[in-house]
């Protein structure tokens, strides 16, 4: 029984794509990555974010719900599997139904492909390749309790799309609400002169 799930913390992502490289090493889809890393907006920041299947729980797996061939199966642990090659009819309903834009359609193989949380590994008690490789723990695999015990940040498993909320097996991690350093308070504490504590509207660099 797989008890762990994925926690995705974009603030820790350094955009190194070790997860993409690692995903390609998985024997079930060697050479292809089912995880994507993208810049949020490189013109503003170096911020990046990994995207992988969130394994929707409620509503359960929109991709599976719209599959006319029942090719997308869900394990008892709630892991939504890639389309079964013997059933997939290449209609691409899943590609359009997914709120996160995860399933990929392989035109040559006429098959939908996506992350199945490294089922072959996780079922044996190992981590998925991506979180195992992730050098910063931006991708982190474990239980909710383990996460709360070890990490800061707010794990969120509900994502809103307009009026529709989707609850997922995987979590996004948002920053703590009150963790930002109050520089002004700090300066006041060290008794910096009054003019220094006033907020200077200048750039971060002189």
């Amino acid at each position, binding site marked *: 029984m797989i008890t762990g799930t994925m926690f995705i913390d974009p603030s820790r992502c350094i*955009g190194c794509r070790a997860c993409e490289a690692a995903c390609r090493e998985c024997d079930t889809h060697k050479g292809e990555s089912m995880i994507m890393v993208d810049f949020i907006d490189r013109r503003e920041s170096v911020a990046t974010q990994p995207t992988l299947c969130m394994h929707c729980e409620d509503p359960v797996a929109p991709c599976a719900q719209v599959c006319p061939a029942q090719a997308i199966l869900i394990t008892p642990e709630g892991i939504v599997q890639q389309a079964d090659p013997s059933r997939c009819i290449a209609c691409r309903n899943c590609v359009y139904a997914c709120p996160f834009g995860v399933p990929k359609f392989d035109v040559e193989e006429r098959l939908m492909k996506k992350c199945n949380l490294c089922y072959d590994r996780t079922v044996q008690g190992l981590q998925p390749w991506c979180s*195992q490789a992730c*050098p910063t723990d931006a991708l982190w695999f474990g239980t909710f309790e383990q996460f709360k015990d070890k990490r800061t940040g707010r794990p969120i498993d509900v994502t809103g799309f307009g009026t529709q909320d989707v609850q997922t097996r995987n979590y996004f991690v948002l920053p703590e609400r009150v963790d930002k350093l109050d520089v002004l308070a700090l300066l006041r504490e060290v008794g910096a002169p009054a003019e220094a504590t006033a907020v200077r509207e*200048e750039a971060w*660099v002189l």
Partner: protein
Amino acid sequence: MSVNKDIFEPDRSFNYDLQTENRTFIEWHEADRVPDKLVDTHCAFCGVQCGMYLKVADGHVIGVEPRDYPHNLGSLCPKGVVAYQQVEHPDRLRYPMMRRNGRSSPLERVSWDEALDHVTSRWRAIQAEHGNDAVAVYSGSSMTNEKCYLAGKFARVGLRTRHVDYNGRLCMSSSAAAYAAAFGIDRAPLPMPDIELSDCIVVDGTNVAECFPIVMQWIWRARDRGARLIVIDPRETPIARTADIWLAVRPGYDIAIVNAMLRHVIHTGRTDDAYIAERTAGWDAVREAVEPYTPEMAERVAGIPAERLLAAAELYARAKAPLILHGKGIEHSTHGVDNCQALINLALARGMVGKPGAGTMMLTGQGNGQGGREVGQKAAQLPGYRHIDVPEDREYIAGVWGIPEAELPGEGAAATEMVHLMASGEIKSCMIMCSNLMVSLPDNAVVQRALEQLEPLVVIDFFMSQTAELADVVLPGTVWCEDEGTTTNLEGRVIRIKSAAAPPGEARTDWEIMCAIADRMGRGAFFPFRTAREIFDELRVASKGGHADYYGITWEKIDAQQGVFWPCPTLDHPGTPRLFTERFAHPDGRARMRPIAHQPPAEEPSEDYPFRLTSGRVVYHYLSGNQTRRIGFLFEQAPEPWVEIHPRAAEPLGIHDQDRVRVRTPRGSMELKALVVPTVRPDTIFIPFHYSHEQSVNQLTNPAVEPGVKIPEYKVCAAAVERLDVAPATGGAAVENLTAENRPAMFPYTVGETKAAAKPQRSAS
């Protein structure tokens, strides 16, 4: 950073593979092969040396599996995941090559006998006519301790030349000299898991996220426990992005910031006076020297708001276990040693060096950058961190090697100086191994002229590099997992590299090649090695009693306790993960402090060259890129260099994002793509350095060196950026701070001249 690849881009490739020089793709083959064994070894691609398993089937390396090792905990960066793909790469050199009819003839396949006979007969002739020192060895650090050790012995015993140095000169020589002078031992004082214990981490001059991705998890563990993070860097790197305080320093001016932080520590009474009195020397002069460094003065010099600096200083001053991590950003400088010492002063004043999770930690960049610099392939150094000027050190090593002390050559030229000796004709021939000078040395037009003077230039490599293209003889070497041996990672942890495959074609390990050449030079009696293990056992003896004492380290012990930290003087000694917990390695047990004054870089912007150019790494490439540019996945992410420029600077120049632009310095110019982003200082531009030929940033960089250790100032020079439709200006000058009068003295040195900086004092114990 990688290229910005939109997932909707029609040609975005999700299927990557090996990439050969001419960029043809090769299909994945037999992806479902099942490994018949896992080889426990380590990644080769940086100083962290992450543990990994290589999957092997029928003697072929087919993949990688995570390995839970104490410092990487199973994680790997993208380089580590795909490192195995070099092993069976189609570009591997498989047989010796030689230009049979001089420079203008092509490199053609020859037998080992023909290649080695040619090399040794030329060397005998050169040495007979011009003396032994006319042949040089330029080595590298990205190989096992056994090979690094043998490179030093090969030069001094096999060739009897004084000229041997290695590419770590370009990497760790600043911090090595600073730590040796301050603490008496040149090694990071802490193991990586200690980072978690810190409650305030200062990162100065290193883009940890891209250069040491694996270190990030330890930093985040500390932050999860409440640690603050301060980053000093001219660019908003991925680690600076989430830092509590980011100080966007003007490149080359870190000392002003560090001294101002120390001044704040003093003024708020947070110095550890008992520690200073008991464990350090030189405090009074330092205290006086930092007094002028007010936050306002630092603002003026380093170009960062004084308030930010004050906030950073306060966080550092109030922390219980502040830790400073530093890297090439401050070390690639004409005052690199001083930059490190300024940080050491700060940590010592707070009494932090020697405490768990606190103090200072240098981040060694290259694969075996730590081991490579202590086993005796450095110009002034003998194995075990012994110094070549010290009579008893010479006597001991001559004894181990079985030669009379008088036959052991003296100190040779540093790597950066060798080039000038080649150009002037003093060095007639050179053997280069594990190095790609044409990409890695500054101002590479001069390097090319120097290498073209050599006859013969001998290069050992496993891929054709830009340097090997110039060679008269190219000998095929092995990649890391085709040999047995040890390396020493950035913590000082000696670890085992294990063989997973046989070398391809006629390729041989570097140590076998050196032994074969030594034999042909009539010195075979000194190189009787049949296995790497035998070399390690000699290294153990040679390092015995030295600072970097490996005597108690055996391959079995490394396997049994997951690495052994040197010094490890006896067989029953467990190794030393934390240094300086009770005393420093100087005879009086005290650490040395030294007043450090702010100094400008050698070259500063002028009207003709208004920008500061700094160079650095991307996460996908390793050193000169000769390996990683050949691995499709890594190449795809960062296929060519670019120049990062701030929108405020780009706009008046009419430069838009993705435009091709020209970057000029007083030494040369190159064309590349502009990345117009606000993540770099407006007065600074950045170019990654992993590329060769016309894409190499080292066509532009300044060859000025640090006076003591001769490390080049890669991290700042004056530059101009312009659109391609602007006619390139000629002439013009930058502001020169290194003049004929204060330019560093170059080789040759008088005996003892380099000893103070490079040689730790002998410990009393």
